[in-house]
């Protein structure tokens, strides 16, 4: 079950890191859900079409990045409302993926046919370690990648000039502007990164385990990722930890289902109730680092 935890946490980790980059630059990314979903779809579609799973992942990255850019254009260039834009992207993703799957596979929201997936890899020495080996080894590469990206996120945000500028842009855009930093470009960059990360997370959902696409398969994970980000106090390692927690809840829910103690619907509701409970519990300590007002120059 712990292996399942890592697996189930993966899309949430990517999502929460994506949300993190966006929010650190001062933009709320409610559209993570939609970016993930589109990523999931793009991954499956391109993977099937090309025969290479990794190409699918790349496509997911591109799709997510594009949606991130869209969110950026609306909220930054046109000073649109961030929540509305994000929600619009979510609805668009739902409709678009359902529509396109009908077009491609003739069935509304479910892929047909063989889809090359990402192969699991076993880490040579680690896999022989009792208990721990089973948990850690044998996952698809994206799971390992998520650890790398988490560390990378921390390094970028706190150890590089770029990260410094991102944080400045998010906290006090006027100060960054006066210091000569291009506020708009920085925000765009972060949103594109945000979308790309969400896309990867989405592609893992579809390619990493099930090798198919199903209507609305992200099931609210984009929002759970946001909750994980908040719980993790907008820090990469915190978000990672929080996501693992949610992954655990998900794994628990699946195990409960297979045990058949409670009716499936109630069990399915658990992760969502947990998210609410967790958010409520983070009271007061959850002060976002950024100022979310759109930055307007004269």
């Amino acid at each position: 079950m712990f292996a399942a935890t890592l697996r189930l946490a993966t899309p949430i980790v990517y999502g929460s890191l994506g949300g993190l980059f966006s929010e650190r630059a001062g933009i709320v990314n409610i559209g993570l859900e939609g970016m993930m979903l589109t990523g999931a779809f793009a991954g499956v579609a391109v993977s099937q079409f090309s025969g290479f799973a990794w190409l699918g992942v790349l496509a997911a990255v591109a799709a997510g990045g594009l949606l991130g850019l869209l969110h950026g254009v609306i909220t930054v260039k046109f000073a649109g409302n961030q929540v509305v834009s994000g929600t619009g992207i979510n609805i668009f993703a739902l409709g678009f993926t359902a529509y396109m799957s009908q077009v491609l596979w003739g069935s509304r929201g479910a892929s047909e046919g063989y889809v090359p997936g990402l192969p699991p890899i076993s880490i040579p020495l680690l896999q022989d370690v009792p208990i721990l080996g089973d948990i850690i080894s044998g996952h698809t590469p994206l799971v390992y990648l998520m650890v790398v990206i988490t560390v990378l996120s921390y390094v970028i945000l706190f150890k590089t000039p770029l990260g410094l500028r991102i944080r400045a842009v998010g906290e006090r855009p006027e100060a960054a502007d006066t210091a000569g930093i291009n506020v708009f470009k920085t925000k765009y960059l972060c949103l594109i990164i945000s979308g790309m990360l969400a896309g990867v997370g989405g592609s893992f959902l579809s390619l990493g385990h099930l090798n198919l696409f199903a209507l609305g398969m992200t099931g609210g994970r984009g929002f759970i990722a946001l909750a994980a980000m908040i719980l993790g106090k907008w820090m990469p390692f915190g978000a990672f930890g929080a996501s693992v927690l949610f992954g655990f809840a998900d794994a628990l829910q699946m195990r409960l289902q297979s045990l058949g103690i409670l009716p499936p619907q109630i069990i399915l509701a658990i992760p969502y109730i947990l998210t609410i409970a967790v958010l409520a519990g983070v009271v007061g300590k959850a002060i976002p680092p950024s100022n979310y007002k759109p930055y307007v120059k004269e």
Partner: protein
Amino acid sequence: MQNLSERLGTLVRLLRGLLLRLLADLRGALPKMLPQVVAILLAFLVGAVVLAVTGYSPLDAYGAMLFGAFGDASGLGQTFTQATPIIFTALAFLFAYKCGLFNIGAEGQFLVGAFAAALVGISFGGLPAFVHIPLSLLGGVVAGAFWGFVPAILKARLGTHEVITTMMLSYVALYVTGYFVNYPFKEPGGWTAQTVVISPSAELPRILEPTQLSASIFVALLLAGLTYYTLQRTTIGYEIRAIGLNPSAAEAGGISVGKGIILALVISGAMAGLGGAGEVLGVHRRFIEGFSPGYGWDGLAVALVGGLNPVGILLASVLFGALRSGGMTMTRVSHVPLDIATILQALVILFVAAPKLVQYLMKRGRSKR
């Protein structure tokens, strides 16, 4: 003691005064709605591109949609039937929005309201209609209000972001009602996940046979008027708007921000719940799993497209109702996937979300001439 004719006269004068004021406000509001109209047109344009690229003829598709929605009495009836629940959820979003809150869980509040109304409608079989109907509607209101209360109190007391909590509760509502309708309250002997029919005394009458259009639309219209009145002409509305625009100044002016937030979200949930109740009592007469094709989301789009005022919402609801009813015809006739309607909806939201975009395009259009 005034006699009847005198009282009637005052009533007529009052109504006329209200109507004139409404029309005056409307005339003021319409030109402001130009950006929304442009946004709609742009959305349809992009939608046409999507259709064309995937091998369908936009003209055929839109034509079928138009005919399906407005071409004949049954289509028209279907359009208004589809518009009705959307009016409720749009008003719900609007009301919360005026208080600075994003209630994106209208879908969930709608569902629980629907289920509660179904329950009340099924039980209490022996009541006269004029008691049973309001009682069932009340059930929906209470359920929706409760579904709005949870995120409300979390926000007011703990500052928890209502976007995530309302969204999560939507899923919870989906699963909880799903559970109830699949197990304890499932109609015995059938395969479909639905409850038994409500008793006839709880049914909202149909007003345009043989379409499904029910008296629920009157409730919706009444609610729209009530919303307008509450927001503009009562102290509660004043306080809610004040909180939405500037909570600091509102607080300094003696307004209790916490109470206002709770009230706004509870009323918002209640409205959505009422909409769900109306659907069950008027159209389906029972609770069926998955009966809502996403009315909550339509409501969000409609509230935005309608320029966040009750009149615009009514107009935009008809538009989206047309999308749904016309969409069904369109799928039947030209085999375009129904989801194009969702795509159009999303495009409208995106274009409306960026008012400056539309302004920018309008300016460019003007300068080109």
